[in-house]
């Protein structure tokens, strides 16, 4: 009869919480968690990427129950999923397009961090964990792309693993080791499958650390100033749960459009041709989200001192991501948000254009003007990171910061989403 008495649930929760503070933890991190009151929709992409990660893991495990990671059977097993497995086409298209959606969201999330200086103290480790997630994501996506064992799968695997052969002396040995043979083949596919299954769970672990680091100091915000008291913050729930839920629905609309009406738009037709080691496709291109790195990789057409052009390209492509680890220290400006940085506000967009240009270069065969644009864009990328970031921080005179988030929001001077609105006259 005990469970019908009022307060029974509360007492059970209290009993559990005394031993394992789970409900307390959820309440603390969701309900009481103070969040800046002025977060714009650009702050939706963090929770969105977490949700896409879950979608990818769920659909991925379902696919794994039907997929065969053998070079003789992989292509046909994917087609069997598409044709004979109940709703196999849906699960596979959701997973396939989910990769693109994931990167789109993560890139927006990353550029949001760049614009509003979310990597600055005390959020350096939060940012670094994010870059680690990006690296893991690229590795996972690449290995997942190999699994259908189409032409592009096979040749992407060949091109990318061959990059390691550029390392002097030990390079060729490493490549043979990665392949598990003397060419991309059955052992390569098996291990890529095993790792493609493993890495998402590693990503989950790093995401949890990312969240722990986030909740230590809370979200940055469009003004880039710390919250100074209860008047600056609101509880995460219900304010941001509903805002995230609305954002999620809009995102799912776009996602659903691709899945149901353009499922192969973002993919390469060549990957519906079974892998053929005897026939190289005319243009080997990675998926769109890896094109900028691919462009940087191919940009070096001449040896630099003792370094071969291939090795130089490999080093630059990896550096383009690794350099992000140092961004918190490369950016010398004490002001976080680009709203109060009159020069950086514009220079930021040069980086966006530069990365888009690199993506275009990566998609086209490296001939004529494409090579030149690729070299200029690669050069600019590193100039932006290594010179402009430190220099602008030193030269720029930031506009005065508002005294508090609530002051700025309530005075109406900083409506959500109007990035360029002047805060106060200098």
């Amino acid at each position, binding site marked *: 009869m005990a469970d019908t008495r009022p307060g029974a649930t509360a007492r059970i929760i209290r009993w559990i919480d005394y031993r394992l503070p789970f409900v307390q933890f959820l309440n603390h991190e969701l309900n009481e968690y103070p969040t800046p*009151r002025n977060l714009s929709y650009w702050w939706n992409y963090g929770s969105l990427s977490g949700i896409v990660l879950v979608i990818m893991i769920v659909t991925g495990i379902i696919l794994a129950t039907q997929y065969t990671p053998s070079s003789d059977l992989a292509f046909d097993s994917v087609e069997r999923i598409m044709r004979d497995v109940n709703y196999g086409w*849906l699960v596979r298209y959701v997973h396939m397009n989910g990769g693109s959606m994931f990167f789109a969201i993560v890139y927006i999330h990353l550029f949001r961090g760049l614009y509003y200086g979310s990597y600055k103290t005390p959020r350096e480790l939060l940012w670094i964990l994010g870059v680690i997630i990006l690296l893991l994501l690229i590795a996972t996506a690449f290995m997942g792309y190999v699994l259908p064992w189409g032409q592009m799968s096979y040749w992407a695997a060949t091109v990318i693993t061959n990059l390691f052969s550029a390392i002097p002396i030990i390079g060729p040995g490493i490549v043979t080791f990665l392949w598990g043979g003397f060419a991309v083949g059955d052992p390569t596919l098996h291990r890529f499958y095993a790792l493609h299954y493993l890495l998402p769970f590693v990503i989950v672990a790093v995401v949890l650390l990312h969240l722990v680091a986030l909740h230590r100091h809370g979200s940055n915000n469009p003004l880039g100033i710390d919250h100074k008291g209860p008047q600056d913050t609101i509880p995460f729930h219900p304010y941001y749960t509903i805002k995230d839920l609305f954002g999620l629905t809009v995102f799912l609309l776009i996602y659903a459009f691709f899945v149901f009406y353009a499922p192969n738009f973002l993919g390469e037709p060549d990957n519906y041709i079974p892998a053929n080691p005897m026939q190289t496709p005319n243009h080997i291109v990675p998926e769109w989200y890896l094109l900028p790195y691919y462009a940087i990789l191919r940009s070096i057409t001449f040896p630099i001192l003792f370094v071969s052009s291939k090795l130089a390209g490999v080093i630059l492509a990896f550096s383009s991501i690794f350099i992000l680890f140092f961004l918190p220290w490369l950016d010398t400006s004490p002001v976080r948000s680009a709203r109060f940085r009159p020069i950086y506000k514009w220079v930021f967009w040069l980086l966006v254009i530069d990365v888009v240009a690199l993506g275009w270069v990566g998609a086209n065969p490296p001939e004529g003007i494409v090579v030149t644009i690729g070299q200029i864009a690669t050069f600019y990328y590193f100039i932006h990171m290594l010179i402009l970031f430190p220099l602008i921080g030193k030269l720029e005179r930031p506009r005065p910061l508002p005294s508090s988030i609530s002051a700025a929001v309530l005075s109406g001077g900083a409506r959500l989403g109007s990035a360029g609105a002047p805060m106060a006259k200098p």
Partner: protein
Amino acid sequence: MLKHVLAAAVLSAAILAPALACAADETPPLPHQEWSFYGVFGTYDPASLQRGFQVYKEVCSVCHPVKHLYFRDLAEIGYSEDEVKAIAAGYQVTDGPNDEGQMYQRAGRPSDPIPGPFPNDQAARAANNGALPPDLSMIVKARPGGPNYVYGILTGYKEAPTGFKMLEGMNYSEYFPGHQIAMPPPLSDGAVTFADGTPATVPQMAHDVVSFLTWAAEPNLDDRHRTGLKVILFLVVAAGVFYAAKRKIWASIH
């Protein structure tokens, strides 16, 4: 910030547009057919698919397999169970080994894959002047331009321009990369006789067989479009509800 996104998009488009224009080569744009399966409400036309299957069976299947199709799949394009059985029974398939350890021939059943014309790729090459006729079950998804490209290949045969060097046994195609295709023009007016009285012109046969091959590559398209519509409608309503809820919840702190 949105304003800036648009500005950046326009600016990068302006930078890239001239470069993109240079990249176009001498291949004419693909013919654009009205496909019943295009668009949000697009569905396959069973009559066209059945005519297309006939064209495949009587013309293409002499050289090209459709590896991923089973006879049972034909029920989806409007054939009755008995018709599917009859179509399957018209083929001989290799089965076995039997109790004596021998492979043997028997009439096809709906559960069999549609047999291809050659036992292996080498036999296919030997019979085709060294060229390998590709499997057609995925061809529409495996070529840029999809159905329009395959339609272009079937209808785009021309006399080679003067001065264009053709290799022995090759044919000039407007749309094939490099313009030299090993496949001789497969369709000619009246090559098949349609049971429903549709005139068997080359464009008609090409249209029907490409529709059939699109279905072969993407048999779940009808289902996908229907489900998609429901999902999108649901999400539009949900987005409206959540937006209203968001406005209400936030009203107190704005």
